[in-house]
């Protein structure tokens, strides 16, 4: 502060813009916290926060580091493009092209079902919520799905999709029994894992929107449906994207459904005549199932491949997250659907 007032004489008081700016500026800094004055309980809590924070970071770092070291050590570019083969010797068991494709395909199918459905359910629950009884029932159902173990869904899916009525979703053996296993059926079951996360994130985002946004649109004579589609949903794209990312993470990470409903075969086994779509009706596997199979806990006897595959799995998850978040936020310039910022009175720019 010193110097700021010294140089003033009465002729310049109350006048602005005439003088040069001061040569030195003192930037304000966050004052250092002094623990000494804190109650003992607060100090303990403070220490606990640090311990937990650092601990979680260390565990995460250890996982990433282990996967990276082991993974990079055993990863060859060829592994990414070779089909796996059943061989006792690790050197002859091929790569994991099929599991990579399977992971991407299953995630795509699961997300394609869960994302639109989840957003629709969330909009209905939050914006309409009628009939009230059905809305409450749906809410409980979604909550239960969120907590449910995936092996339960897997079992249910296997039984459901083996019904002859649903044979078109998977393959039918020569004897006439429906396998119930395909990317379509596994994707449908997997979507249950992602659904509650998409619904939750979307509802949360809708709840954060100010009521005056809805009012403004309706005051212009727009219907509620139009308001939702043109104003509300575009405004919450980042929120929806966050939910979808979480949901995709659960689909990618699940193994039970792959083993039960996808077959966890070594190769993708396209079925049916439609080009491009044949893989959807066929069985297959994913990286998680491949890692389990080849890990020391599995039967594949190729632990090195498991490490490499796990590393690739990690990279895929990171890449997908990044892509969806980018997609959700959009280009800031053209579609400024940034988080809602209320206007402050008289604030320029």
């Amino acid at each position, binding site marked *: 502060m010193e110097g700021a007032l010294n140089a003033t004489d009465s002729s310049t008081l109350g006048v602005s813009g005439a003088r040069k700016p001061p040569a030195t500026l003192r930037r304000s800094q966050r004052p250092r916290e002094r623990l000494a004055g804190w109650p003992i309980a607060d100090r303990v809590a403070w220490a606990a926060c640090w311990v937990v924070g650092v601990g979680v970071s260390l565990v995460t770092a250890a996982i990433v580091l282990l996967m990276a070291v082991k993974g990079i050590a055993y990863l060859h570019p060829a592994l990414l493009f070779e089909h796996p083969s059943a061989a006792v010797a690790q050197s002859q068991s091929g790569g994991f092209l099929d599991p990579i494709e399977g992971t991407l395909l299953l995630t795509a199918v699961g997300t394609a079902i869960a994302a639109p459905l989840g957003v629709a359910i969330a909009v209905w629950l939050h914006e309409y919520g009628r*009939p009230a009884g059905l809305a409450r029932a749906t809410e409980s159902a979604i909550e239960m799905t969120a907590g449910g173990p995936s092996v339960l869904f897997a079992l249910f899916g296997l039984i459901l999709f083996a019904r002859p009525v649903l044979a078109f979703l998977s393959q039918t053996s020569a004897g006439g029994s429906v396998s119930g296993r395909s990317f379509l059926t596994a994707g449908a079951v997997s979507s249950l894992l992602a659904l509650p996360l998409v619904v939750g994130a979307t509802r949360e985002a809708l709840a954060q929107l100010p009521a005056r946004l809805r009012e403004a649109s309706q*005051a212009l*004579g727009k219907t509620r449906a139009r308001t939702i589609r043109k104003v509300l949903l575009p405004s919450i794209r980042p929120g929806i994207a966050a939910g979808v990312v979480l949901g995709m993470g659960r689909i990618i990470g699940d193994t039970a459904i792959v083993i039960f409903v996808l077959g966890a075969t070594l190769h993708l086994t396209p079925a049916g005549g439609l080009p491009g779509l044949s893989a959807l009706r066929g069985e297959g596997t994913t990286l998680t199932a491949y890692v389990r199979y080849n890990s020391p806990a599995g039967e594949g006897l190729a632990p090195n491949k498991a490490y490499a595959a796990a590393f690739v799995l990690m990279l895929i998850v990171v890449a997908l997250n990044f892509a969806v978040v980018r997609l959700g936020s959009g280009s800031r310039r053209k579609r400024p659907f940034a988080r809602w910022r209320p206007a402050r009175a*008289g604030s320029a*720019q």
Partner: protein
Amino acid sequence: MNQDPRLAPPVRRIIPRQAGTVVEPRSEPAPSAAAAVASAAQPAVEPGVQSGAWQDPVDMPAPPRAPTTTHSNVVERMRLESVWLAYGDRWVVRDVSLPVRQGEVLALIGASGSGKTTLLRSLNRLTEITAGAARAGHITLDGEEIDGLEANDLRRRISMVFQQPNPFPMSVFENVAYSLREERAARRRRRRAGLPGRGPRGDQLRASVVEALRRAGLYDEVGDDLDRPALGLSGGQQQRLCIARSLAAGPEVLLLDEPCSALDPISTATIEELIVGLRESVAVVIVTHNLQQAVRVADHVAFMHLGELVEYGPSQQIFEHPRQQRTRDYVSGAFG
């Protein structure tokens, strides 16, 4: 969408009072705090309240029809006849009758909680999206009951600007274009009415957007880049954008709910100038807490207190020679 009774919020309708008959409002006599305050403030009419035979607290004749303004082409567009409004069991507007005219600005003044905003919101049936709101009485637009019109069509004709600037989180252009683009149902209705079905598109849309921004006095400030995010504008600019958005749809009546309360004096002056300029082409109703603002922009003023219309008259009369003691107290700053 609003027509679907399963989806619309539960709006309890009160049967409109027939002329000449007296219907006892459901919560009168009410033991509610509001009613207690109301009757305490007005011991003279208490017996009337108790019996349900509500009488106008003021000797208000049918709203004056003679043009009291200096403008030549003043046309009555809307008419409110004994309008009652309630939230739940609480009456917030009691028996208000008013004309709304094109060619002049009508200001609703009064202390907080006097029902100004609720009354304003009822003019384009925006009260209906509030759960528990109910209305009785007649409101007409060009002689037609507004209840008989489709709510969204009505809101296109009677547009509203809110207290807080509420632009959509889109670009400036899209904010205005949004109100111009017709949705499918509206397109169908327009075609049936023999109008071109679609709203403007392409160059025509752009021209309409620019025109609306010009009318709102914003074009000179944002015209160089209409694709900038609306939320990046200053508060005053955002509010003018909201006015532009409302004007773009070509409303016949413009409702302004304290449009300047969140703004600085310079932005306020810009908007007031705009309001006065608009009155020739649209009927303007403005709710304001700011008496000076009412003096500056209004041709007619309605003073409301605790849900009642205490006095209605030309601006000059209300501010210089009010007939009612309460009006005199309010405009001289004794309360409020």
